């Protein structure tokens, strides 16, 4: 497969000088949303919410608090088993955020290692590694997760593994493209003259120069991973019940949308908000620190 277009451009080596106040203006909405969800996920046990697993058949399909039939005991209503939706969404954010962050960290570490190796050594090493990368990139993520779910059984680890095993290829491609141009610059030659070995050049000189790109990619991909994880849970190949996960919550509400719209609507809104926030933050990071990458 052809190279990523943005990756071929010369990297911005120096952080652009921030002259106007405008440029430094932080993206308030994305940071607030991400902060809120991370905080809720971390302190979930301390919030005094009802137990997300507690069933109460008398309270089945209670509408949200502001509806006539609802009560503020369950602000966002309850599901088929009378479980509190707000509490399940808060606990579900732990699953989604953890899946997103862990997967992206694993994938980026492996992908960056492959990209650095391929770009630094070039030649046959590069050719082989890039063929593997291309093959990986064209493999649909969800299919791998499906095989794992049917053979090994659905679990958090399998979801993370299935996504990470495919996702690293993006990082490898982009980082390799950057390293190809970096190794031709003088500071690498100077490091070599000073007697630095391959390991030292890769870890001390090349890697730090790709951090900006890595940060942008990581942020943009967390949202993508959250959506994939939710899709898998929706299909029954993700986080198995009764653990609250946004994708499976939407699936549970699917057959009752007509009489209990809130069961599917609120977890979906949660996904939309978090993913939107990560995408906007990633866009902002890219525009501010690494404008050359704008095609990612």
């Amino acid at each position, binding site marked *: *497969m*052809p*190279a*990523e*277009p943005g990756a071929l451009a010369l990297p911005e080596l120096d952080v652009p000088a921030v002259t106007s106040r405008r440029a430094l203006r932080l993206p308030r909405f994305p940071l607030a949303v991400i902060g809120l969800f991370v905080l809720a996920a971390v302190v979930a046990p301390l919030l005094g919410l009802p137990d997300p697993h507690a069933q109460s058949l008398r309270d089945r399909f209670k509408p949200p608090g502001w509806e006539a039939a609802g009560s503020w005991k369950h602000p966002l209503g309850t599901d088929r088993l009378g479980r509190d939706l707000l509490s399940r969404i808060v606990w579900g954010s732990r699953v989604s955020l953890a899946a997103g962050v862990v997967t992206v960290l694993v994938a980026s570490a492996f992908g960056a290692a492959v990209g650095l190796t391929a770009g630094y050594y070039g030649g046959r090493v590069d*050719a082989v590694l890039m*063929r*593997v990368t*291309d*093959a990986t*990139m*064209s*493999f*649909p*993520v*969800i*299919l*791998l997760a*499906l*095989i*794992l*779910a*049917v*053979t*090994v059984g659905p679990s958090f680890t399998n979801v993370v593994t299935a996504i990470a095993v495919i996702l690293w290829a993006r990082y490898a491609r982009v980082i390799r493209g950057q390293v190809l141009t970096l190794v031709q610059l003088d500071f690498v030659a100077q490091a070599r003259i000073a007697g630095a070995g391959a390991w030292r050049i890769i870890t001390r000189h090349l890697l730090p120069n790709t951090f900006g790109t890595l940060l942008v990619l990581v942020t943009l991909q967390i*949202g*993508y991973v959250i*959506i994939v994880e*939710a*899709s898998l849970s*929706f*299909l*029954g*190949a993700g986080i198995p019940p009764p653990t609250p996960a946004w*994708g499976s919550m*939407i699936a549970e*509400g*699917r057959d009752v*949308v*007509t009489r209990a*719209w809130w069961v*599917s*609507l609120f977890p*979906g809104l949660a*996904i*939309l908000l978090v*993913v*939107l926030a990560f*995408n*906007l933050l990633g*866009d902002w990071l890219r525009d501010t620190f690494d404008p050359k990458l*704008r*095609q990612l």
Partner: protein
Amino acid sequence: MLRFVAARLMQSLVALAIISVVVFVLARATGDPLYLILPMSASQEDFDNARRYLGLDRPYVEQYFSFVGRAVTGDFGNSLRARRPVSELIRERLPNSLKLAVFAMGVSLAMAFPLGVMAAVRKGTGLDRFAQVVSVLGQSLPTFWVAILLVEFVAGRLQWLPAGGIDGFASYILPGFTLGWFVVAGLMRLLRSGMLEVLDSEYVKLARVKGVGEGRVIWLHALKNALIPVVTFAGIYFAILVTTAIVVETVFAWPGLGRLAYEGISSRDFPVIQAVVLTTAAVVAVVNLCVDCLYALIDPRIRYAR
């Protein structure tokens, strides 16, 4: 050019081989497949007989090659649930999936092209901002959730369009748009940034100086080069489309491969999953191959780059 095509073909075959090994290893690594096939009451003797009959007592390498040999001829064994040859199921479902994928791709191209190009031409205007909202929303909305809401409101409450199944053109609209939506966002982004770059280049300025009409400059001179990054990513977008289709087909009860895969998971029907994965991987590989050849035709630099 012929050398390029041959090299790319080899790559695709290698990729498919890797995937088939993964599928095979996963099938064996997770326990004896006989436990799935034989009833609980089977005796040790039944196990031995079945093992010999199915060739599971032979070396793994031999088993792998006979598995590949059968897969190539379209023999994936019998579905555990439907009790029919998997190849029959695939032959029924694959055309439906392809029809939906082509329709969705058409929808996204028809939406992404004018929007992406005009957003770049009228940079900073309301149109551009609208395009950016479409793009960021497209990448943030969970497809299956949108699908459920569309089924409930457009098909259920308003009764404008059918909620599922294949029944004439109208039934393509909801699943097609849901599926195309995500791709529109990505394609539009690529087109916009590609156009911005090209519109700023010397040859476009020259064309303008020479008195070429603005329409010709944008849609002919500039778009041709702005298309290169789009073609680069077309293969990846197709893989994403195939993946998203599993979810969309499930919600819209579309009798395609994706729905087959979903049914396969819920009944742990391994032969079906195996066949769907290999078929899909093959379709994606063929599309990628075509895209790359197209790419090499448009941009001669690619042919010599490697």
